[in-house]
């Protein structure tokens, strides 16, 4: 492969949008071309920077409250339209047509006010809140949506399925939020320690997820020559790849070389899986599975 061809493919390669054959060609070229490696590293460094971008936007309770209020008003509007028709017919009989509109309008406003009042009392009844942190992955169809969440639940609402507004999302973060130093807190060193601890926890959690991914990948059926559906593994791998780049660089900056080494060993597998098509050829899957087996990467991750 020539440099021009490689550079043209690099963005799609980093995005996991090239076929296995092209991905292999890019990988081979990168092993021998320092100029293209520089471009590749620039792209991954940019990916790292964008992965750190935190908009600090939150879903306030008002958003869901507003939605339920508007939704609640809609069936009422249908109902009042029907009622208006009936009243119009009656009004026609008794020659009081103007009352119909005023009555149905008043009913609609009343229903909205009742709904908003109800929602307000349900959300505001308990000042004490229990913050439950969860860091689960939610698989939505073939896509995975990161839900590293902090969800606030009102007491008595552990069963969030019982009411329309019994949860308040405080902050969902693509990445776990770093603790911020309290301005008047003299314990800077302890804050630094907490930061490191969270970073280690992030890495441990990341490696655990990667290990599960590789174990899952290893169990894929690829004995015959049929295509293998790797949509889930591919999406998961893409997400983990972004995290991996950030964590590896963090580990390097912090001088944690064993961590950096483990993350560095993991990265080629994530790149390979991320670059598979949704329906991957069985031979490509087998090739990666063999490498997983041969390099004992899963054992290395477990040992971390």
């Amino acid at each position: 492969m020539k440099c021009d061809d490689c550079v043209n493919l690099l963005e799609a390669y980093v995005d996991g949008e090239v076929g296995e054959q092209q991905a292999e060609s890019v990988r081979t070229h990168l092993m021998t071309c320092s100029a293209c490696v520089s471009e590749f590293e620039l792209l991954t460094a940019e990916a790292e920077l964008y992965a750190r971008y935190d908009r600090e936007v939150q879903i306030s309770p008002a958003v869901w409250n507003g939605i339920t209020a508007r939704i609640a008003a809609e069936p009422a509007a249908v109902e009042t339209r029907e009622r208006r028709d009936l009243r119009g017919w009656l009004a026609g009989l008794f020659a009081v047509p103007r009352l119909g509109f005023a009555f149905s309008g008043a009913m609609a406003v009343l229903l909205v006010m009742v709904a908003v009042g109800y929602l307000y009392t349900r959300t505001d009844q308990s000042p004490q809140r229990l913050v439950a942190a969860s860091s689960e992955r939610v698989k939505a169809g073939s896509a995975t949506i990161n839900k590293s969440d902090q969800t606030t639940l009102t007491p008595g609402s552990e069963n969030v399925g019982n009411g329309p507004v019994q949860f308040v999302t405080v902050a969902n973060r693509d990445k776990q939020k770093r603790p911020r130093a309290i301005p008047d807190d003299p314990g800077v060193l302890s804050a630094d320690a907490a930061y490191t601890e969270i970073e280690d926890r992030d890495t441990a959690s990341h490696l655990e997820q990667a290990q599960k991914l590789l174990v899952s990948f290893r169990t894929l059926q690829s004995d015959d020559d049929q295509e293998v559906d790797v949509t889930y593994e591919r999406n998961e791998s893409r997400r983990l790849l972004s995290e991996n780049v950030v964590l590896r660089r963090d580990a390097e900056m912090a001088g944690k070389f064993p961590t950096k080494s483990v993350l560095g060993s993991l990265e080629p597998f994530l790149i390979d899986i991320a670059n598979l098509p949704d329906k991957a050829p069985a031979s490509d899957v087998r090739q990666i599975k063999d490498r997983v087996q041969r390099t004992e990467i899963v054992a290395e991750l477990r040992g971390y």
Partner: protein
Amino acid sequence: MNSSADLVSRACRGDQEAFRLIFERYSRPVISFIYDQVSDRELAEELTQETFVRAYRSLKTLRSETKLSTWLFGIAKNVSRESLRARIRQNLHIDLDDEQVLDLSDRGPVPVSQLLNKELNEVVQRALALLDEDKRLVFTLKVFQQCSYEEIAEITGFSIPKLKTDLHRARTEMRQRVGQYVRA
């Protein structure tokens, strides 16, 4: 049990709890995506609300082969665009200060690891806001929401070649604006 298809089916039958779960699952990526388009937190909340209300109204039109996230991003894109158009009509342009961007850039190279989160967020946000609408759409869907080219094409209605070109140009422009902060 709570797959997206199951939740949609239940929500279509009037199960509000199912719709609440859909909201809980997708509100974060949707508000992030909208915020990237409009650069205004309060407006992003309003538009997220509008997105989910519209989604609720038209749940029954969701085709089974369409991914829920793709469909929601499509609605969010329309809602954001309408809002941006309305703002342009009212001459309320996004409050961008190009001088500030230059000011940040003039500080010389700073490794990303040394950038304060707040500063980094400002740099990226300003750089994003300076992209034109199409490029910003494609860039945020690919880089921040990890959508595939096919999904982006479905959300935006762009052809694959167009979105690839837009994405490349967006990356180039972003590199010019945030490149000094990248530790290559």
